[in-house]
Every structure is written in C-alpha cells, then in structure tokens.
C-alpha cells in the first residue's frame, strides 16, 4: 500500500571520484578539451603563442651584449646573416647604461648609499609586511628608518636628521608636561576633564615641535656642526635619477598616502561638518585634476608663492604632490571598504562601550583595510607607475633617461631594448606588490560568514 515509505538501514560510505575526473587527464579534459569548440580554441591559442614566441625568442637571444653602439650591433647581427629591422635586439645599450638607468647621475663612488638605503628599506619593511615571521622588536628600526633614508640619499650632516628626531622628542615632552599640568589643574577646578587636558597637551606639543623645527633646529645643527662635524658628502637633487628616483618617490608616496588616506576617508564619513567638507573638498579637487597638472604646479607655480630666495627642493615638492594625489585615491578606496562593513560591526563595537577611536582602530579599520587590499594595492601600483610622469617636469626617471640615452649618437634609434628593460623592472616591482597583496589576503582570511 505505501510505495513511498522508505527507511535507510545503513549509511553509504564515501567513494573516490571516477579516474577521468582527477589528475592531469581530468584537468586537461575539463580545462583544455571540453567539447570540440574549446578544443579548437586550445589548438588555435597554442599556435598563436608559438608564433609570438618564435618571433620573440630569436630577437631576444641576440649576441650583442658587448656591442658599443647600434652600428656595431648591426655588424654583429649581419655577420650572423641576420638582416633587417627585426634581426635581433641590441643589448649593448643595456650593458653600457643599466647603471645609469638605476642610479641616474648619482656620483658613482657613492652608489653604496642608495644601495644601503634600499637594503635597509627591506629591513624596515620586513616587520610590517611579514609581522608573523619577523620579530616585532625590529619595528623600532622601522620607526627610525624615515630619518635614515633621506640622510643616506641626500647626505649632509648627521645633525640634520637627529635634529628632526629631537623635534618629535621635544613635542612629546611638552605634550606630557602640559597634559600633566592641566590634569593637575583639573583636580582643582573640576570643570576641566581628561579630554580637554589631552587636547591642550597635543596642541602645545605640536607648537613646541614646530618652533623647534622652524627656528631652533637651524641653530642646533649649526652649533653641533661646529663642535663635531660628522656627516657624509651631500648629493644634490638634480643628480638623482633612474629607478632610484622612481622607487624613492614611489615608496614615500605609498608610505604617506595610506595613513593620509585613512584620515581623509574617516573625515569624509565624519559627523563634524567642517571636517567632512574639508575632506570631501580635498578629495574631489585632487581627483578632479590630472597628476601632470599638479606636477607642473610643483615645479613652476609653487616658486611664485614662495618668498624669493627660498630653496624648496624639487624632489620634495614632487613628493608632496604625488603623496597628496595618491592619498585622495586611497581615501576613496578605503571609503569603499568602510561602506562594505555591515552596520552591525559598528553597533557591536558601540554596544561594548568602545569609544570612536578605539572602535575605528580595533574593529572597523582592520576589517575595512582588509576588504580594500586589492584596491589599495592597485592604487600603490598606479602611484609607482605614475612616478614616470616626473620626466615631464625634467626629472630624470628611467623614461626621462631613456630619452637622454637615445639622444646619444651611438644609440640613436634604439627603442625596444630600453623600454623593454624599463618595463621589465617596473613589472618586477608591480608584480611583487600584487603577489604580496594576494598573500596578505590569504593570511588575513578568517572565514567570513
């Protein structure tokens, strides 16, 4: 009577999938030869790749590494019976000029300084990038590195960076002293509370630090220099060039734009009207203007506003502009991450009694930044590649240098080899950033619901 009645008496064991579905055969069946259309496409693609490689590989494998000019390259290739425009690459230019492409016109006997600066950059970045594998004590070095880096590159007296560090120390001392003094006052007059004393302390500290940097620092450096002139040979900004310049601008802009972007993104979401509209205005203005315009402003217009005789370093001006440009984009990327967070996260943090900064720092930002990693890294890569635009205002980044090299009679007419080499180096940096971001995403993945 009841045909639909059914009771399972034993549970089925797990079985292996059919052999044709796993292993290399299964993979090829699924991915390369899944039906006649896909099989045809696969064969066509293999043919296409073969044709490209067949043309490219012989061009790359050309024995012209020791040639001293384009004409010499042509002779070498001609002796091999290879004629014509695409006979082979002329690698002599890279052999002769690669050092220049990397260091620009930086004095050759001082190459150790940029090399040391970038090796130390790796050391300083390690505890930030690989926080689980590198001891966190190295972070002290990371904090000091921003003062070492410019000193190594630009040189000069050691008292300069020390004086800058002292500015922070002075600011901190004044902050704690004022904070304490006002707190003591608060005990007497109960009207003043902790937040007020904190704020007064921060303002006093900032003012003290500014006074130190702008006025006292000069005397301090002068005095210390006359007592003990310790320093390394200064190098002028116009001698900077090549990848060293690109990396310097890129690293500084990347490192500064992330915190600035976070502040701007929070400002844009703030309930405080003035903060909000200042942030919105800044972001929209910077995003609405091409980077080249900003660079022109940096290279020419800024001087008009400066008092005559001020020497405001061109690389510093470019650094500021590129940083501001990047931070506007960064702010929008981070705002995207903030918007993607469910409201419940804010409410969860609020309901536990965390204040605004605590919940931003402990709950909101770690998650928003994690969500924004792909966008943040895209912006980083974009900023790094945009550093090539400084060639337009006369700085000799790799592209600017390539023009100079091609103006050399020996290498007049070289195109692909130079740009290929530059592209390869850029690719190495950008691809590593992209890979790192994927590693970071995997590491931070904690199984969202």
């Amino acid at each position, binding site marked *: 009577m009841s045909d639909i009645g059914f009771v399972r008496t034993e549970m089925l064991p797990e079985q292996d999938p059919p052999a044709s579905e796993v292993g290399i055969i299964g993979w090829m069946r699924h991915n390369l030869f899944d039906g006649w259309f896909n099989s045809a496409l696969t064969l066509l693609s293999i043919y296409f790749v073969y044709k490209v490689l067949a043309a490219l590989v012989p061009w790359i494998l050309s024995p012209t590494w020791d040639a001293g000019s384009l004409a010499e390259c042509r002779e070498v290739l001609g002796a091999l019976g290879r004629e014509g425009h695409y006979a082979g690459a002329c690698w002599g230019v890279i052999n002769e000029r690669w050092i220049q492409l990397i260091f620009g016109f930086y004095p050759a006997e001082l190459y150790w300084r940029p090399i040391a600066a970038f090796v130390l950059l790796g050391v300083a970045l390690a505890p930030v990038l690989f926080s689980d594998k590198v001891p966190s004590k190295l972070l002290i070095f990371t904090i000091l590195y921003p003062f070492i880096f410019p000193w190594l590159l630009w040189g000069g007296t050691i008292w300069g960076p020390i004086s800058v560090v002292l500015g922070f120390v002075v600011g901190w001392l004044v902050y704690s002293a004022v904070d304490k003094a006002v707190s003591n006052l608060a005990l007497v007059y109960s009207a003043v509370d902790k937040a007020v004393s904190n704020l007064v302390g921060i303002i006093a500290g900032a003012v003290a630090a500014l006074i130190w940097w702008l006025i006292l620092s000069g005397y301090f450096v002068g005095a210390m220099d006359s007592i003990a002139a310790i320093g390394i040979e200064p190098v002028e900004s116009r001698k900077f060039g090549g990848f060293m310049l690109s990396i310097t601008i890129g690293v500084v802009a990347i490192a500064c734009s992330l915190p600035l972007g976070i502040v701007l993104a929070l400002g844009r979401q703030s309930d405080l009207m003035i903060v909000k509209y200042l942030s919105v205005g800044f972001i929209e203005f910077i995003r609405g203007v091409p980077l080249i315009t900003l660079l022109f402003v940096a290279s020419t217009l800024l001087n008009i506003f400066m008092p005559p005789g001020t020497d405001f370093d061109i690389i510093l001006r470019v650094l500021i502009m590129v940083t501001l440009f990047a931070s506007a984009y960064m702010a929008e990327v981070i705002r995207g991450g903030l918007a993607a967070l469910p409201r*419940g996260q804010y409410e*969860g*943090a609020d*309901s536990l009694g965390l204040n605004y900064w605590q919940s931003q720092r*402990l*709950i909101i930002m770690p998650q928003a930044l*994690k969500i924004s990693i792909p966008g943040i890294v895209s912006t980083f890569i974009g900023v790094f590649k945009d550093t090539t635009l400084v060639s337009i205002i006369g700085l000799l980044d790799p592209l600017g240098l390539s023009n100079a090299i091609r103006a050399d009679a020996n290498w007049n007419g070289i195109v692909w080899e130079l740009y290929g080499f530059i592209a390869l180096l850029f690719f190495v940096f950008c691809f590593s950033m992209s890979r790192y971001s994927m590693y970071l995403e995997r590491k931070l993945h904690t*199984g969202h619901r």
Partner: protein
Amino acid sequence: MSQLAVEREIDRSKMTVSDEVAIEIVNMNKWYGAFHVLRDINLTVNQGERIVIAGPSGSGKSTLIRCINALEEHQAGKIVVDGIELTSDLKNIDKIRSEVGMVFQHFNLFPHLTVLENCTLAPIWVRKTPRKEAEERAMHFLEKVKIPEQANKYPGQLSGGQQQRVAIARSLCMMPKIMLFDEPTSALDPEMIKEVLDTMIELAEEGMTMLCVTHEMGFARQVANRVIFMDAGQIVEQNEPEEFFNNPQSDRTKLFLSQILGH
C-alpha cells in the same frame, strides 16, 4: 509558535526582583525623520526583572531597547540607566554602554578576531583589565556558555548557535548589570534556538536583569516576570506572563496571540 520549554525545572531561588530601579524611561518619544516610531513610552525596570517585549514587526520593540544603550537617539523624554541619564554627552553614553550588555539578532561578532579576542577586547580596552585576567574571565564565561574548546577559532568557523553564545559571553565579560537581547534567536536554525535559550535561562536563574525582544513565547511564559506587548510604537499591554497569555485584555493583543500561538 514553538513551545521550547526546557525539560528541567527552572531554579527560581535567585530570580528575585529588587526595589532598586535599573532603567527608568519617562515620556520617551522618537522619530525617524517625520515618522513617529516610539510614542510616549513609560517604563520602569527594577533590578532582577526579566522582561519580554513582544509585538508585530515594525512595532518599535527593537528600537525601544536600542534606545536604552543609545544605539538609537531619542528626541524627547528621559531615559535613566543605572542612575545615569542618557544625554548626548558621549562620556555618559560610553559609561552606560559598558554597564549594559547587548546581544544582537545577527550576533555582530568581530570576524577578524578569535572567539577569545572577541571576549577580551572590551575588558582590556574599556575596563583596562590586565590581559591575563581578561582571558581568565573570558574562559570562565565561555565555559558557562559551553564552548570553551572554540576559544581559539574565528567566529566564521562556528555555527550560528555557537556564535550567538559567544556573543552572550562577550557581553558578560564586561560584567554588565543589565542585558538587552534584540531577537537573539531569530536568525538561527530551529535546532540551535534551544542552545541559545538554555544559555539565556541560566543567565536569568542567576538574577540578571534582562530585557528580551523575542518571539519565543515559551521562553516568555517560563522565564519572564513581565511581558510587554507593543504595537505602532506604543506599549499596548503589559502583564505577568500567566495573565498575559491566558487573559489578554486588548483586542490587538488577542489578535497577535491568536496569530502566533494559533498553530
């Protein structure tokens, strides 16, 4: 509606209502733009009370308890929690929030932190409890909600019922005087509702002051000392559970009860 009665007898020895006032709400009104969500709410909650707030969706019951810890701002009237009046003063708000625990429908655990870190975060940063002590207390409460073995997992690796119990433990770690529950079982599978309700019952047995927005009428009948029925932003009826379920007075309450208990 499910009658999720606990099988065991509830221990009522500590479930006593004191004379001290925990929450006092006087003539409170709230608007969303022009929409009048809460109308003239008057409610006094004594310490040790277990109040269930019921009502159709959109009746303002969630909004009411969210006003108590200032997740929503009220525009008129007075709310006093544990002797502190809720004003726009952020210091008062943070103080009240650290004394009032809240459990949400969607748990709102922090997915980037482990279960243990979820539980120790607020004690460490808000209460300035030493880490070791905070962790010990967190383990104590995780044992209480019966998931100490999940302490080092991330919330995303737990089932809904386990996540909600973590959320309860996280609130308890702040040693709150009052617990607010905003539909704590509405996002859970039927099999998991019971484990969360059991945790809540244990909490009630220890004398915690609780305000629960819930549709679990079995829980209301057994645990609550007062049931409040809300509709259209107003308190329509409140009574002891026995009277409320067996002898509802207003027509709106009768209709509501017939609909949710009718099948």
